[in-house]
């Protein structure tokens, strides 16, 4: 194994990573992560306003992962069905960021990129109108989502969504999303 755990620790420390996880995203995991973050923020005596914002955005980010991960090419090459992702919660000074990463089929990249660019080009008021429009469009996915997650994240974070698509192979890309939360 060529992994140096101290180096890993040191990088996490220097980058102010409060919490990170890589693996299967299950409903039970989300419940635990949310509980951990909530009690961490309580211990840190964050204001109710910040706590709510971070919690809300975290719920949307994690549930996006839960519902939308495409399979991991390494695992599927081994014949496994695995839907893993990575996420980190960073606190630098008093600013929170939530970073997520997951595999995505190349076919979905341009649609996703278009949606994110559309959201980023909108003002606060335009986002509000867009949210209401999508809320009321009568379309519901099987589980009740329906395209509101990213709009809500952008609205609540108050900052543009930073994203990247890292090409992996002919079928897959790795999608990373960095959400900075305005104070």
């Amino acid at each position, binding site marked *: 194994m060529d992994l140096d755990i101290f180096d890993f620790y040191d990088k996490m420390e220097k980058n102010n990573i409060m919490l990170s996880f890589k693996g299967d995203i299950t409903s039970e995991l989300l419940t635990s992560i949310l509980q951990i973050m909530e009690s961490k923020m309580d211990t840190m005596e964050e204001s*109710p306003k910040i706590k709510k914002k971070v919690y809300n955005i975290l*719920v949307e980010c994690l549930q996006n992962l839960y519902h939308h991960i495409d399979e991991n090419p390494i695992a599927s090459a081994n014949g496994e069905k695995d839907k893993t992702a990575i996420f980190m919660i960073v606190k630098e000074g008093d600013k929170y960021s939530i970073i997520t990463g997951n595999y995505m089929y190349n076919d979905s990249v341009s649609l996703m990129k278009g949606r994110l660019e559309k959201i980023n080009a909108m003002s606060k008021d335009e986002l509000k109108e867009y949210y209401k429009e999508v809320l009321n469009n009568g379309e519901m996915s099987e589980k*009740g989502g329906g395209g509101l997650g990213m709009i809500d994240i952008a609205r609540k974070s108050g900052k543009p969504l930073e994203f990247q698509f890292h090409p992996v192979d002919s079928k897959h890309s790795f999608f990373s999303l960095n959400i900075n939360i305005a104070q």
Partner: protein
Amino acid sequence: MEHLNIEGTPKTPTIKFDVVKGELLIRGRSIPENSIEFYKPLVDMLEAYTSKPLSNTKVDVQLEYFNTSSSKCILDIFKRLEVLNSNGSNVIINWHYEEDDEDMLEAGEDYQAIISVPFKMIQINEE
């Protein structure tokens, strides 16, 4: 018709629908991964209630958090209340939000703009 009584969990709200008083309460957190499944009993019950409603129906929504998956279900419930309101029951929706929780106030205003049912914003003052 039986009352509806769903206990809250860390991811789902308490729901109480008292059909004798015509009072519906939704309180707590609504962040399930599958909201449609969670809200189905309430949707079914509203449907039954609408066929034989009381003359007044009071709805209190006091959510601490809700996810976007719940937000479409909540709109669906409000739309059913809109039907109820035009079917002979005077409906009032009280939307409770905590002081400082601008996002929750704004979420209430978004619904208020879409739904034509008397909608009241109620601020909860922290002790």
